[in-house]
């Protein structure tokens, strides 16, 4: 079963602590194993999110005007990116697919990357949307 919900980084840490606490109090070994699997999955998701975010920030560095990149930064208006770069087939989309490819190669070597399409970027507004797009397409890569 796949459960999806939006949660910020700080709350993820609280959730992990709560699940670890629940696991430590449980006497049932199968429940402990299940909770530990869930904790592991959440940690991987969190790490992937941080990795993707850092990688994307680093790859966009030369293309921006040096403005601070935060999760809610609107990439079209607040980063000094060229509109031509955002629209180009060899611009932003290439960088995002490059990171996606690295991620798939590293963690799902047998999988075929589910490449990001330009229409998906058209829908994105913030830097967080771009990170989520890479993560979602990574998860959809099989």
């Amino acid at each position, binding site marked *: 079963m796949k459960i999806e919900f939006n949660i910020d980084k700080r709350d993820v840490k609280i959730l992990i602590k709560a699940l670890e606490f629940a696991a430590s109090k449980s006497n049932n070994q199968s429940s402990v194993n299940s909770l530990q699997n869930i904790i592991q999955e959440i940690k991987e998701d969190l790490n992937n999110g941080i990795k993707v975010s850092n990688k994307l920030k680093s*790859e966009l560095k*030369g*293309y921006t*005007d*040096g*403005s601070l990149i935060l999760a809610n930064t*609107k990439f*079209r*208006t*607040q*980063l*000094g*990116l*060229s*509109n*031509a*770069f955002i629209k*180009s*087939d*060899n*611009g*932003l*989309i*290439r*960088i995002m*697919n*490059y990171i996606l490819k690295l991620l798939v190669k590293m963690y799902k070597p047998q999988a075929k990357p589910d*490449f*990001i*399409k*330009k229409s998906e970027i*058209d*829908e994105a*507004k913030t830097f967080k949307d771009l990170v989520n797009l890479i993560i979602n397409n990574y998860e959809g890569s099989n």
Partner: protein
Amino acid sequence: MKVRINILVISLICTFSASSQNTLFHSNDSLRINLSIGKASDNQFTKSEGAEIIGTFPENDSISNSWLTNAYLEFGMVSDSTHWSIGLVGEIHRNTLVEKKQHVEQLGVKLGKIIAFKDKKTGASNFEIPITIGLKQSKDFVKNTTAFQGTLGMSFNKFKGTPLLKTQTAFPKFNSGFGRILQFSHNHNIGLSYLGGNENVYLGQFDFEINTYFLPTLSDKLINKKDLFKLQFKYSGRTELFGKTDLDLNSLISFQTGVNLTFNKKNSLELVYVWNQGANPLKGLENQKYESLIVKVKVFL
């Protein structure tokens, strides 16, 4: 006698693309079918502008209908892997609302190629030169002439480095100092054109635009774009390189200001005032001065 005049003002950019396969990207043979509508097909610079269609139909037999139409329709194919594109294009430039009337209809072929200088690691471009080549048959209904036209247009799009030198990039920095009040961006085209028929002349061409965005932070907050209040200056200059022509070659200068309301991520409504002075021999526009107030509707299908 009371004369009622109905004025229809429509301007639109409409693009539709369909892929020959599901995977659009990173496929060696990915081809897209592309249908686009815009102001003029000469180069990337004019292609990105919205088409203008204005019809005036007086309910009075003594006054004839009048038009202001600047539009092209292109149907073509784009190869994502080779960056080539080819298309059939039809174009109308008709303005009966000015002193020296303009009415040109064109039909031809467009070739496009993007020369990309890429980063070896990511494959993303650091610098791009989009090139547009047009071969058209042009009929001028005012002068009653038909002539072959060839155009070559290119831009130099820098994606990295100093914001001031990058095309289509707002500067100074958003939300810091002066950037809170005003931001600027620029775009350009350099090209050559050939006018056949009675002219047989080669022209050099240079187009340049500067956009000024007022209160970009407020605009960003309200419509998620920076062009809620915008002022645009455009310069389009031509000169004879080989051969001579009697056509007006005066530079076409325009100032444009207006309000842009965006309803969702792509569709928008603009109210724009435009002041124009100059000529465009490729579109049958003789040297003159005129103003227009236009409503632009941008629709993406």
